[in-house]
């Protein structure tokens, strides 16, 4: 089955025979996202799946320059957004697509949704940002680790006793003190993710819980995607145990019921049919 994008296709991009799966984990810093990605990777690899992890600001093209520019705090909203979009497109073409073509499971430690939410919270036009990222590949699953700002800040401070300028949204001028700004910014981000969930059909996972319980919920969701891959989307049907890695599926999901909130039964796939892409605003003409 050919992969899909959110409406626009990058030149020279062959969407056929992408045999791998693209799984996205979204969530704020301190949501346990990176820990969960590592657990997922280990779990998938132990079952014989080749895994590649991608994330934001990791392109060979612009990641250094983007990091440098972020330090200096001089980029405007649209510039920063476009810089991130360049980084994303580079990774999409040079990492994600080749890995999917080679049959890898690609775990994305954040994807376009974080970039979209940040830009919208900072005041970017929603239609503009949706159109910009309409070239993104539609993932096979998007899991959003939803963590209350009160829990986030405790976890963040446990890791390092200082707050990050950007994760606190200090550039928005929500408050002069970092703590208040962090709380306000994370609430805005959470609200934006909730809104996007209705459009893109994420799975929202309650990330306030223990690492193990979250891991279980994630595995359950990932398992559903992999079953679809191996058994033609037949829900609840599993390969007969042959002693191989597929047979390991069963115990992993035991007791994980009800851990995943879903927006109806379509999940991430529903986003494809509904097509969140809207035609961009009329192109500019001379005034």
């Amino acid at each position, binding site marked *: 089955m050919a992969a899909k994008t959110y409406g626009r296709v990058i030149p*020279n991009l062959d969407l056929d025979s992408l045999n791998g799966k693209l799984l996205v984990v979204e969530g704020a810093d301190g949501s346990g996202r990176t820990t969960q990605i590592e657990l997922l990777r280990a779990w998938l690899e132990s079952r014989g799946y080749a895994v590649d992890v991608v994330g934001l600001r990791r392109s060979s093209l612009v990641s250094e320059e983007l990091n440098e520019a972020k330090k200096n705090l001089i980029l405007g909203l649209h*510039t920063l*957004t476009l810089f991130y979009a360049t980084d994303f497109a580079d990774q999409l073409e040079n990492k994600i697509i080749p890995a999917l073509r080679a049959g890898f499971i690609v775990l994305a430690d954040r994807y376009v949704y974080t970039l979209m939410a940040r830009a919208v919270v900072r005041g970017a036009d929603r239609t503009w940002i949706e*159109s910009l990222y*309409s070239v993104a590949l539609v993932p096979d699953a998007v899991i959003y680790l939803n963590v209350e700002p009160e829990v986030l800040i405790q976890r963040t401070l446990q890791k390092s006793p200082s707050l990050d300028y950007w994760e606190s949204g200090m550039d928005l001028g929500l408050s002069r003190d970092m703590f208040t700004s962090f709380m306000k910014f994370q609430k805005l981000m959470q609200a934006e993710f909730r809104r996007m969930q209705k459009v893109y059909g994420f799975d929202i996972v309650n990330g306030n819980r223990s690492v193990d319980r979250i891991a279980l919920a994630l595995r359950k969701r990932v398992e559903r995607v992999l079953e679809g891959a191996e058994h033609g989307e037949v829900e609840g049907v599993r390969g007969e145990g042959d002693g191989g890695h597929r047979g390991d599926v069963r115990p992993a999901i035991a007791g994980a019921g009800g851990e995943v909130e879903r927006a109806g039964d379509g999940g991430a796939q529903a986003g494809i049919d509904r097509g969140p892409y809207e035609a*961009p605003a009329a192109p*500019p003409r*001379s005034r």
Partner: protein
Amino acid sequence: MTLPDVKGKLIAVEGLDGSGKSTQLHLLQRWLESEGVKVFFTEWNSSEIVRLATRKGKKRKLLTPSTFSLIHATDFGDRYERQILPLLQAGYVVLADRYMFTAFARDVVRGCDPEWVRSVYAFAIPPDITFYFRVPLETALDRILSGRPSLKYFEAGMDLSLSADPYESFRLFQGRILDQYERMKDEYGFRTIDATRAIREQHYEIRELLRGLIDFPAYMKPAEAG
């Protein structure tokens, strides 16, 4: 998308390499300055911050049509947000040597979706007037190629695999860009300048057009204090 209202005026020049547009913009800048007008000049692909990334991408041939498009949009965004827009808001006449239409032409020739490229630039105010310096392809090519310059990989459109010979590739690439400009001139209401004429003749035509567009006293530099 709602765009801000600004006091200033934005004047862009577009056209093929070798159309003489940069010469004309330079003369225009000199004239406006001599009239006491607050002028700011900006050119394509010149943001300090983004330049390193663009240079690396070009040198190592890392750019694809989409990243080529986006990195130039980033460069434009930086110049727009930190210079063009604030200066327009402060009542300057901003002169742009190439504007978003250059991206529309080049990126579409490279295979990007035309609507997508246009939407990427939808955050920016369109020019008050865009001068399109129109010349036959051969004239522009002669002006550029007669000195047998060393053409850079992306400049010659080598990434399009039109020809293994850089000069032939450049010819074909420029021809396609010309097609895009010809399509856009009505779409965006470009003011076409016949760029085969004498330089001074073109310049005086532009002066006349601007006298009708710009109320000069409103854009004068403030009198020096003291």
